[in-house]
């Protein structure tokens, strides 16, 4: 029934950054996998769990173009994530989902894409990035601006390397002042100021922005300065969730249930929400 | 001039002179016999304050949560002797500075509020000393005696039925001046010591551990008992703990602001007849 999760097997675990790990998990039952393949679209989230500890909500970090497995990236902090951080390949975990809405990537076709992410918020962005890169011909120029506190805190380092090598992707990396290592070649500075420096053109461009609330706030101002309209900026919201299906009553921001009506919103929609409920 | 008028006047003076930033007292309730806590911040509004025999809540519970006293300013509070004892305990446990609390003291005798002159918690030492060992109301004492007469199994059944009613709304905890932990043991989930589910077992654990945490700290204001929406006689269990602290260790909670908490201290010759 409604709260019964799918059993999943851990394929592999990867250390991304201090305290941050990525789990790659696969469906054990064929019918569960079919359900997922039929319903998953980039931007949706799920409840990842482990029996005995509970469930925790994060996005599906793998793109809709790759549905043989699910990847999720999380920071070890609470009871569930601490246990999930300690699983090994072959262990059984659970997944409930996919829930929520999606990034309308068909509507992005023919447009330039600007991805902006901060810290641990690269995973939801990465799901859209790969969904678009896997159908590269459909989109225009792709720019990725990614920042973290320190060099060590950058996640998906091997993929950052891959994007850097590609000619059809413009990758801009930055770390906060003081977070750079002696051999750091890229930018030093906060994402909004680096963004203004790089100054991508807003013409025919969709921006996808994910990060901590404070970064979102300042980056939106920077995007506005660059000429982006709030309708062309997409973001995802997160709140504490228990059910994921609009029943448990805690994830709403104003009248908007993040789990049912989100997690993907345009900046224009977010601006309509009561800011003190975020 | 009745006590209510006298205290309204005093509250107005305290507010207009700037000595206190706030007066916490009782106001009209939904029905004639109900009083609700009111917060008065200006001298013009002191007419909201009502003082009569229905003002029974221990208002000291509002002082610690949400950092009311963190700005160093003074607050005046209507308190009965049990409330003054709470202030002493909170001071002894370093939760507040008793100098920040101006007490508008009263007690209820013969269905009427009577004034208590002390404005500082320390003024109440002789009164508290004289109250030491005062017991439960006759009806509650009868119920307590009835419980003591029971065999263990029967008593277990009694509490099982009582605790089976618990819905874990935590009104007992929230209303209690002594329950100020930022994170209560029941909200700690690594490990999850107490089952958060409100089945009888989880309720048993919760209520026993809460009673233990209040041992030697409860001032018997009866707030938990009155606020329990499912009528569990929590006062009985807390009173039993207070009695143990008094009989065995001579500890009467809230005697003074420098009284050591009973379970945070010891004497080398504490009784230990039960230890093998």
């Amino acid at each position: 029934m409604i709260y019964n999760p799918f059993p999943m097997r851990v394929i592999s675990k990867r250390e991304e950054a201090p305290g941050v790990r990525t789990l790659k998990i696969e469906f054990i039952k064929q019918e569960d996998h079919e359900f997922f393949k039929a319903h998953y679209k980039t931007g949706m989230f799920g409840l990842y769990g482990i029996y005995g500890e509970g469930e925790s909500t994060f996005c599906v970090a793998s793109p809709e173009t790759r549905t043989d497995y699910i990847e999720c990236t999380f920071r070890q902090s609470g009871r569930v994530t601490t246990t999930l951080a300690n699983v090994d390949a072959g262990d059984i975990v659970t997944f409930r989902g996919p829930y929520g809405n999606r990034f309308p990537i068909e509507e992005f076709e023919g447009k330039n894409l600007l991805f902006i992410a901060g810290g641990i918020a690269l995973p939801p962005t990465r799901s859209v990035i790969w969904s678009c890169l896997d159908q590269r011909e459909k989109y225009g120029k792709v720019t990725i601006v990614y920042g973290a506190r320190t060099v060590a805190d950058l996640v998906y380092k091997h993929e950052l390397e891959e994007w850097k090598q590609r000619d059809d992707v413009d990758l801009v990396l930055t770390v906060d002042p003081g977070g750079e290592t002696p051999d750091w070649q890229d930018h030093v500075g906060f994402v909004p100021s680096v963004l203004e420096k790089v100054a991508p053109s807003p013409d025919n461009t969709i921006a996808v922005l994910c990060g901590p609330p404070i970064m979102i706030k300042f980056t939106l101002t920077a995007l506005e300065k660059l000429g982006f309209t709030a309708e062309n900026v997409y973001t995802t919201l997160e709140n504490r969730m228990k059910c994921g299906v609009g029943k448990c009553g805690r994830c709403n921001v104003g009248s908007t249930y993040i789990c049912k009506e989100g997690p993907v919103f345009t900046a224009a929609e977010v601006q309509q929400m009561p800011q003190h409920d975020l | 001039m009745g006590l209510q008028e006298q205290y309204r006047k005093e509250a107005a003076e305290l507010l207009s002179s700037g000595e206190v930033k706030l007066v916490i007292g009782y106001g009209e309730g939904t029905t004639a016999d109900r009083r609700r806590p009111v917060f008065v911040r200006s001298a013009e509004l002191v007419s909201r304050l009502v003082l009569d025999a229905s003002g029974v809540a221990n208002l000291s519970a509002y002082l610690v949560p949400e950092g009311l006293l963190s700005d160093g300013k003074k607050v005046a509070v209507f308190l009965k002797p049990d409330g003054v004892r709470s202030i002493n305990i909170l001071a002894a446990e370093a939760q507040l500075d008793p100098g920040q609390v101006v007490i508008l003291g009263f007690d209820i005798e013969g269905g009427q509020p009577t004034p208590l002159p002390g404005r500082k918690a320390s003024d109440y030492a002789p009164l508290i000393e004289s109250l030491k060992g005062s017991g439960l109301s006759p009806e509650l004492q009868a119920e307590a005696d009835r419980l003591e007469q029971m065999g263990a199994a029967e008593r277990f059944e009694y509490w099982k039925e009582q605790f089976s009613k618990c819905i874990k709304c935590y009104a007992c905890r929230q209303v209690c001046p002594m329950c100020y932990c930022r994170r209560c043991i029941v909200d700690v989930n690594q490990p999850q010591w107490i089952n958060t589910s409100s089945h009888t077992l989880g309720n048993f654990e919760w209520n026993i551990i809460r009673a233990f945490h209040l041992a030697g700290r409860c001032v018997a204001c009866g707030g938990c008992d009155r606020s329990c929406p499912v009528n569990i006689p929590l006062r009985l269990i807390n009173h039993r703990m207070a009695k143990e602290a008094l009989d065995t260790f001579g500890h009467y909670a809230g005697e003074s602001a420098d009284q050591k908490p009973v379970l945070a201290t010891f004497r080398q010759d504490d009784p230990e007849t039960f230890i093998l």
Partner: protein
Amino acid sequence: MSEPFEPKIVAFVCTYCTYAGADLAGTSRMKYAPNVRIVRLPCTGRISPMFILKALQKGADGVLVSGCHPGDCHFAQGNYHARRRWTVFRALLAFTGIPEERVKFSWVSAAEGAKFTELINGITDSIRALGPFEQYQELQKVIETQSTY
């Protein structure tokens, strides 16, 4: 014919005295009842009443809490504090109907292997006589079954 009842007893002991005492009993080849499961903690001061409740909930029929004699605590005062807590906690258990006979407290020093042996045997016998603590275990069983509503 059903198996004769063998009680499960959990002993929370401090590592400096009682645990060493139990060790001495072992190395001296003294025999004591195998019904006891020993949980070693740094000091009796660390033994929260929650541990005792959890043990009973998870199926223990009796609990023993034991540490250094007064004055012998490795941390100077831990057992004095523990003693006060036990006094109050025992009263609480009694008042809520959890039989005092099932929760025992003792001082056993590192030299008292023989006392430890006697203690365990004595407690095991007395709890065997009391029978299983079904009243409390029943609460656990209830939550494991399907809701009837």
